[in-house]
């Protein structure tokens, strides 16, 4: 047996390690995907007032703090037993769209574009966002501007880009000004144009990635995501629908407060990331995926014209249920279109500028659950409090966690296809990392932890001798 270790994996949001075991014939015998940090938010928040939770749990992740603040505030709304003002809900949805745009733009342009535009085998010294800026300055600038637009929405409403304190239990802190609305509206056409153009470029390169599409975690699994009553995709509110690999609806819609009847969590000895599973099918059969690809599979439609037109093209090419993890990139771009279209609709709602944006109440229920679709998938916050509103128990199931086992299976599939024999090439290792990147995993979120990426791969003989080692310069 020989062992290859990739640690840590680069250009992902977190700290992970991949180990690949080769048998004597040089074929992949086993692979492991490990997440190597833990922070313990579930435990150390015990005793804190519930209304601090949006601010504290925001610090789980600097990339999608808004998603944590929303799920957290929704759990707090339930503890207060309030229905938040209509305008507050609109504003929360608006800021969430901004979050989806900025996070997806980060994933596509800053983290994965180096692989997609420069190539999986490009020189690792230039295979980064600076390389993209040099190779295609116009596209790089457009991508940076697209992320900036998403952040403009966040900053416009909440005054800060990272960890603002504007989303609060009961609603939001302040109404939207007419200037903010008009500034966001004015930016939408440019953001749409960038997204459409990028989608066009991405689609034109798909043929050159046919080997990756076929072998990048092209595994039939169940999928989960939020939908509304009509079965359309929802980012902010709805019920969790589960759909099978063949497209059958396994559960039409789990309401947030009943999530624990359907979603179980498994602990693994070799990773700090837990693995959720669909309880009715048990751990062995209950693996499912979440996130952009899962959402496109789960929903009947998106519900906005441009995004639905692209969804139709996507389904014509890859079928009603698309399974390749490579297509997460594609799904992400379609979702940006959807988020931009939603943004426009929401900003033109008649009551969007109203000033009643916060409901006030104390503790009226001892338990609350909040679920949203974060950029990377279904995010669940669940709290229990005492009569004084102090947290006595908290549970967080975050987006990337749901994909834990699927990422592991995808690493195995890519390794089996691209790694042979006892000679290593950098491009092999980058493809193994790239499949992890396709999921855009936020390991910071998933273990409520964060770490430092880099890559090393080593081939070790059965007797422990180092046969080959590969590091980028």
């Amino acid at each position: 047996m020989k062992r290859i270790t990739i640690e840590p994996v680069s250009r992902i949001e977190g700290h992970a390690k991949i180990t690949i075991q080769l048998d004597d014939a040089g074929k992949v015998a086993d692979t492991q995907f490990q997440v190597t940090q833990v922070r313990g938010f579930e435990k150390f928040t015990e005793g804190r007032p519930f209304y601090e939770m949006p601010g504290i749990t925001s610090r789980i992740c600097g990339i999608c703090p808004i998603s944590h603040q929303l799920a957290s505030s929704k759990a707090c709304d339930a503890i207060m037993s309030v229905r938040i003002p209509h305008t507050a809900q609109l504003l929360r949805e608006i800021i969430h769209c901004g979050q989806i745009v900025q996070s997806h733009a980060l994933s596509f342009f800053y983290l994965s574009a180096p692989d997609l535009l420069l190539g999986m085998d490009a020189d690792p010294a230039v295979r980064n966002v600076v390389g993209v800026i040099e190779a295609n300055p116009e596209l790089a600038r457009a991508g940076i501007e697209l992320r900036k637009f998403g952040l403009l929405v966040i900053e416009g409403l909440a005054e800060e880009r990272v960890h603002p304190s504007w989303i609060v239990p009961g609603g939001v802190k302040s109404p939207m000004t007419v200037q903010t609305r008009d500034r966001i509206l004015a930016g939408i056409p440019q953001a749409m144009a960038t997204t459409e153009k990028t989608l066009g470029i991405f689609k034109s390169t798909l043929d050159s990635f046919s080997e990756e599409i076929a072998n990048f975690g092209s595994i039939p699994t169940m999928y989960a995501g939020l939908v509304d009553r009509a079965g359309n995709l929802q980012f902010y509110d709805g019920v969790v629908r589960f759909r099978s690999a063949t497209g059958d609806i396994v559960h039409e819609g789990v309401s947030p407060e009943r999530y624990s009847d359907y979603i179980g969590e498994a602990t693994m000895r070799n990773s700090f990331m837990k693995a959720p599973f669909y309880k009715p099918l048990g751990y062995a059969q209950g693996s499912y995926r979440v996130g952009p690809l899962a959402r496109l599979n789960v929903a009947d439609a998106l519900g906005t014209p441009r995004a639905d037109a692209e969804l139709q093209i996507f389904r014509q090419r890859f079928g009603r249920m698309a399974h390749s993890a490579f297509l997460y990139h594609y799904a992400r771009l379609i979702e940006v279109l959807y988020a931009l279209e939603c943004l426009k609709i929401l900003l033109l709602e008649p009551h969007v500028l109203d000033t009643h944006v916060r409901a006030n109440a104390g503790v009226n229920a001892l338990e609350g659950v909040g679920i949203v679709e974060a950029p990377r998938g279904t995010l669940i916050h669940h709290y229990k409090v005492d009569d004084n509103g102090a947290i006595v128990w908290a549970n967080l199931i975050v987006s990337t966690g749901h994909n834990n086992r699927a990422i592991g299976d995808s690493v195995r599939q890519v390794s089996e296809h691209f790694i042979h024999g006892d000679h290593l090439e950098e491009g092999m290792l980058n493809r193994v990392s790239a499949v992890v990147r396709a999921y855009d995993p936020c390991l910071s979120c998933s273990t409520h932890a964060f770490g430092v990426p880099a890559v090393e791969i080593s081939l070790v003989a059965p007797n422990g001798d180092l046969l080959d080692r590969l590091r980028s310069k």
Partner: protein
Amino acid sequence: MKKLKLATVWLDGCSGCHMSLLDIDTAIIALVRKVDIVYGPLVDAQEFPEEVDVTLVEGAVSTKEDVDKLQHIRQHTKLLVSLGDCAVTGNVSGLRNVVPVNKLLQRVYVEGADEGGCIPNQDLPQLAKFARPAQDFVKVDVCLPGCPPSSKIIAGFLNTAVEGRKPEANQKIKFG
């Protein structure tokens, strides 16, 4: 002009400080004309280079691995910067310090599991008793507090570093 060699590192933090660095938006295009990003989560370099001019450290120090990494970085960096409140004070990462590590792991992995129910310990770093700030372990040259520090502050600091000037002590900063 010789380009400034910049490294960035994530320890026990949320990446928000790195996001704030990216929040300089298109100014990054001008920045990379004067600065080489030689190591960090945004690039594929695998080994910390021998000589780095400036290293930005985000996050608290939470494991033995973090300590080793930080000491290695210190040896190979001219100007070491604690970027953000977790690196400067421990901040939210340090909220766990009131809970014994075994109780924390027990809650998350044993009580919080429907299957498995074991504390992960196979081939993984061990959590240290406390999450601590960087200056508890190495000499820190500059502290940029904030949760996160604003992109303006980060850009302002990088500009002084590029010009070889000392960072100004009177710039507006805030914790939290």
